[in-house]
């Protein structure tokens, strides 16, 4: 096995990893970024529904009641998300667990994150969508809310010169999306960071003090950790990196999986690893628009329809948006069915075609994100494969039913004909009972004031393991009720600042927005 030295090893290249990679490289440290997934970015994206393409970059982890989808690719989820970039509401930071204890550690608040939100927004060129750019489905949704006297806000996006081709979630072939490929990652590389795709971290172990060049706590270059990796995918070469600082940014699943596999080498690791996964309780409802509402358009304009309602945030802990799913993600998530046809046969055949013919213009899909409690957990089975579980099902079922009732009320009071939305599993079979699917998972290595309640301290450092950090969504302790990417990035910026301060380093902390859109020709 080859041995390599680096000052900083960053695991992952998504929202939680890119900021520490950039800031620590700017501070003059030798930074190595390992990304488990393949290289991808503008120029490699396709506007397609081909599962062979999608499954190359997007992975899933499922259980009976919860499905998590995440990206494994250079840039992480930033290449494939809908670009929605919202600050988490204050009410998210005020959540408490069943014992009345705060979910967020002391001092990590919206106000504390706001300067880092500012920085992240500048880097990603986040702006509120103009009214004239809101896609039709979003306009119709806003009209429906307005007719009921409800509020609806124009959302914010990380995009420049969007052409509205509708394939944000398969990667923007025009370079309009301000993914990490056009800001953090190239700037990190320019500052000296080396980014290696197809490189999977297998385990981390603390080096004995005698094996290090220096045991001085304040020296960021003194190797403290050995990280065993496989470079080059399946069958690739085994390499061991020795690093003074290791930053885990592989996401809720990736970081927990790595820490769980590393327990033998990390003696002080909290028993909370893998626990407290939050998932932004997404509930969906759909209906056929009445004649007095104009057409929506499921396939024109950006993937997210532009509008979000905070009307029920304070009262019910949910935000509501419309949705414009592309066909394959929609079919892979739920069966839409006319309510008066049998469940057993209404999801295919002539009845289904009759519905699908209306899907593009006459169907509105509503969905929520909510402040559901962090009751998911991830463990490893005897083969090292991750297993997902959910507790508190009765409470989640009540939340699901209550939220669905709100959505159905919005539909019916607008004259829509509600559709049945039957969740399905990965084989297309119906998933009875409470079932959530999300790309907005957080937690699994949450921040906490003590190792008894979480895995990392408020600065992202693993309790009991100096120099080992978790900077991604795994560290976020709660659901946010809005898309999680901006909060993960802002918190990662905050953690990066903390690392610099911890070691007495001064980074340039350049805030250089990404390049503007590349108006590529259609291939």
């Amino acid at each position, binding site marked *: 096995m080859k041995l390599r030295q680096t000052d900083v090893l960053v695991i992952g290249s998504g929202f939680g990893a890119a900021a520490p990679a950039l800031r620590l490289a700017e501070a003059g440290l030798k930074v190595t970024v390992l990304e488990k997934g393949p290289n991808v970015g503008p120029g490699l994206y396709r506007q397609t529904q081909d599962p062979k393409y999608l499954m190359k970059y997007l992975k899933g982890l499922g259980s009976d009641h919860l499905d998590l989808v995440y990206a494994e690719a250079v840039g992480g989820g930033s290449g494939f998300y809908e670009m929605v970039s919202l600050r988490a509401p204050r009410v998210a930071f005020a959540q408490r667990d069943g014992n009345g204890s705060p979910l967020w550690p002391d001092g990590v608040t919206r106000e504390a994150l706001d300067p880092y939100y500012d920085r992240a927004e500048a880097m990603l060129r986040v702006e509120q969508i103009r009214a004239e750019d809101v896609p039709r489905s979003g306009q119709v949704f806003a009209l429906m809310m307005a007719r009921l006297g409800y509020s609806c806000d124009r959302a914010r996006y990380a995009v420049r010169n969007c052409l509205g081709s509708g394939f944000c979630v398969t990667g923007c072939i025009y370079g309009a999306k301000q993914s990490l490929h056009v800001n953090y990652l190239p700037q990190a590389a320019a500052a000296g960071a080396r980014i290696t795709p197809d490189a999977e971290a297998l385990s981390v172990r603390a080096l004995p003090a005698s094996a290090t060049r220096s045991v001085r706590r304040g020296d960021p270059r003194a190797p403290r950790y050995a990280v065993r990796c496989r470079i080059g995918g399946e069958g690739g070469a085994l390499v061991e990196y020795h690093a003074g600082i290791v930053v885990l940014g592989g996401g809720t699943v990736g970081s927990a999986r790595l820490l769980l596999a590393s327990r033998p080498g990390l003696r002080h690791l909290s028993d909370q690893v893998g626990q407290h996964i939050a998932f932004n309780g997404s509930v969906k409802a759909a209906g056929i628009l009445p004649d007095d509402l104009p057409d929506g358009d499921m396939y024109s304009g950006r993937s997210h329809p532009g509008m979000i309602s905070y009307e029920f945030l304070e009262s019910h802990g949910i935000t509501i948006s419309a949705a414009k799913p592309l066909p394959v993600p929609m079919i892979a998530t739920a069966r839409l069915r006319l309510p008066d046809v049998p469940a*057993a046969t209404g999801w295919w055949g002539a009845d289904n075609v009759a519905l699908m013919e209306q899907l593009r213009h006459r169907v509105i899909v509503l969905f929520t994100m909510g402040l559901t409690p962090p009751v998911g957990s991830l463990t490893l089975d005897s083969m090292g494969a991750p297993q997902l579980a959910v507790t508190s099902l009765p409470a989640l079922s009540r939340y699901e039913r209550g939220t669905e009732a709100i959505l159905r009320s919005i539909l019916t009071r607008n004259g829509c004909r509600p559709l049945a939305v039957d969740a399905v599993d990965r084989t297309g079979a119906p998933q009875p009972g409470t079932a959530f699917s999300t790309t907005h998972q957080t937690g699994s290595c949450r921040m906490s004031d003590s190792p008894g309640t979480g895995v990392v301290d408020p600065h992202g450092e693993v309790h009991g393991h100096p120099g080992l950090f978790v900077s991604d969504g795994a560290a976020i302790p709660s659901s946010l009720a809005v898309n999680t990417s901006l909060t993960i990035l802002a918190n990662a910026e905050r953690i990066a600042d903390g690392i610099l301060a911890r070691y007495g380093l001064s980074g340039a902390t350049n805030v250089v927005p990404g390049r503007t859109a590349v108006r590529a020709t259609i291939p």
Partner: protein
Amino acid sequence: MNCPNDPFDARHPNRRQAIRLLAGGIAALAASACTPATIILKSYPEQYGRGTAATRRTLHAFTATVIPGLTPDEILAVDALEDPFYPTAKYCAFLASDLDRRAGRRHDRLFFELDLPKRTAIITKALDEGDATTRKLYTGAVFLTQAAVYGGIHDDSAGCRLTGFPGGNHLADPALVSYPDTSRFAARALSRDGNPA
């Protein structure tokens, strides 16, 4: 019949191992058309190999039943069921033979020779009354067919005529993306800049 061996989940023994493993009892299972045993023993007629004319003809009829209204060319473009990338490819020969077996038993015809209501009834019955593996196989095949057709997965730019999905690499007329009279669609905003408080 209860068929505990689920070929989607179990490692697949080869033919010899399967026979050794299941010994004499398997013959009885196969004779009664238990899906796992039939698949393991490949105890369906030879003309239903992957890619054979009989298999393709039947699978095309299956596609036309799952999504009525497709043109013959559109049906021909759907080859996902036989694509080795998807798990159904290993079972498409069985699926075709099972569809024809069910059609023969009920109507003394091949599946593709039946009209749409009869084909629909056969798939419905398999989904409703088949053993667990049969239901799983048929469900997966319907699911993949829908994804393939509605998503136009065989060609990035193809889209789907039935649903109006344009596929990739097309840009909509900007005038058709949003309605111009934006004030008509304005709702009261709770935020100053789109961010929640």
